[in-house]
């Protein structure tokens, strides 16, 4: 019996070097991006009200956000600490991954009157960059449609407090808006499916 069990060990040990690879390829876009999902949802479709959906952002939008987190230009809690862990090549690969994911529509409680008001304003003031009701973005403009209202409000507060810098083109328009107008816009974008 002793010998037979030893044999099992030898057989397993011999087979073992085949299974466990000594040389693995560098992390793929999936390897890098799946790790984000614990906070941002599977394939970047967020269920958490203060966490943005990353799915379907353009690569340029994702890369711009990550680089600003990394440099500290964009304020954050954990994102700055995490973004520093990735090279430009990593960030580009993750940008490709999230750009390929399907748009993530959300169902959330919004104020119908605000949505209507916001829709008119968005068409007039925002649609040049926030294309197709915010489902797409020009260049590095992020996807606004269906983002959680809580998240949008937190970002608006960061803009209004000066902690997050707004693109000049956006500031020209945003700064003219009343508090109510701004809120209406957020309700509108949150409602778009």
């Amino acid at each position, binding site marked *: *019996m*002793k010998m*037979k*069990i*030893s*044999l*099992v*060990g*030898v*057989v*397993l*040990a011999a*087979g*073992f070097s085949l*299974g*466990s*690879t000594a*040389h*693995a*390829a*560098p*992390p*793929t876009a*999936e*390897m*890098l991006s*799946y*790790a*984000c*999902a*614990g*906070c*941002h*949802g*599977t394939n970047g479709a*967020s*269920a*958490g*009200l*203060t*966490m943005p959906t990353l799915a379907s952002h353009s690569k340029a939008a994702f890369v711009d956000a990550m680089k600003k987190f990394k440099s500290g230009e964009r304020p954050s*809690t*954990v994102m700055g*600490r*995490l*973004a*520093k*862990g*990735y090279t430009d090549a*990593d960030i580009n690969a993750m940008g490709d991954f999230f750009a390929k994911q399907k748009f993530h529509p959300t169902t959330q409680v919004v104020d119908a009157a605000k949505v209507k008001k916001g829709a008119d304003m968005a068409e007039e003031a925002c649609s040049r960059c926030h294309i197709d009701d915010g489902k797409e973005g020009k260049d590095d403009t992020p996807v606004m449609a269906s983002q959680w209202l809580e998240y949008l409000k*937190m970002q608006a507060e960061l803009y209004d407090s000066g902690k997050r810098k707004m693109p000049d083109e956006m500031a020209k328009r945003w700064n003219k808006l009343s508090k109510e107008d701004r809120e209406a816009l957020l309700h509108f974008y949150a409602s778009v499916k």
Partner: protein
Amino acid sequence: MTLDRRSFIKVLGSASGLALAGCATQGGSGAAAPAVGKTQEILPKGSARRVVVVGGGYGGAIAAKYVRMLDKSIEVVMIERNDHFVSCPFSNLYIGGLMKDLNPITIRYDKLAANHGVKVLQAEVTAVDPAAKTVVTSKGAVKYDRLIMSPGIDFRLEEMKGYDAAAMEIMPHAWKAGPQTILLRKQLEAMKDGGTVVITAPLAPYRCPPGPYERANMISLYLKQHKPKSKVIMLDANPDVSSKGALFKKGWKDNYANIFEYRGAKKVTEVGAKNRTVIIEGIDEVKGDVVNVIPPQRAGQIAVAAGLVGDDKNWCPVNPTTFESTKQKDIHVIGDACIAGAMPKSGYSANSEAKICAQNVVALMNGKPTTDMSGINVCYSYVTADQAISVAAVYTVKEGKIVGVPNSGGVSPIDYSQAKSEAVYAHSWLKNILTEMST
């Protein structure tokens, strides 16, 4: 030798109805065939390749889901003893009275099964037979091509004299969320104002490095609000706070100075359930009205029985790329049970490890090259009802070891300037990670 002979016999021997004599009649890799023969197979394996996942927690549920997401031709059977899972992360908030029941931290598996075709088997795993590639459960044997073990932790009770099952009902550990969590909460509610709560923490490594300190916060918060004459004493086996140290100390000073007392290098080795006492290194005795004993830990018992633990007899060494056990072929170990280098034993680490493992398991099964790991840990600890602190890091593999990426990661600012935001973000962390596991 890959296989420890003693544990091999133990594994086989613990399979119900298996005669050890049967082992000797077999040769080579077929040695364990009797285990299969004597334990009736449940879910007989067809022609499809199969991954079996043991455990439906932060690691297991994600591993099962991602294997299916990556390759629908691979059958996945996830074996979990309960029909639901209660999260340890955020369970301290329930203990502190910030959550009225465990519903927000409880998940079920029906959507995971329906959305991804994961076959969920509710059963207790009683043995693993690596040679026969079979898992023996309370409901029958299940064969696998590759096995992913995410068994969590069990306690090293031999290092905590007197802490048996009966003692746990008097002095709860609440380190596996569920009935124990509720018991600790009830004891705090029943305690008189002016009582003493004792929390004991084990030497690292253990599940959730900041967990004991967050628990101290949540218990202190409850007592401060409802029983302000009470005291909380933490007896920590570690020489000093072993996670987010400066942040926790500031939190205690600013919020709980009159209630909470931290005592480092106080290793509790014995308990006296009758009088609710704990004994430090066999000498000093400390008595409490409520005593929360967090014992030293090791990988879940089934991982020990399967011969997966390393020289330390406690944790499972793994290949840092595939999370395949270095002790048993075709068995991968993730989550708290494994040794994942710099990655802490946290829920988020288990989630991240599960995905790394799933990707490389699928690659190996398809004869494709494996991919170096890239992982994340993000972990929040509550300090007050609306303040939390965090640790976050990105992990990579370097010279065969999992390490944090240099010049990245870290903890919250020491001035607590982000603590209110982090308490808000932490709720989305919970929502997303539990949604990921359950849909």
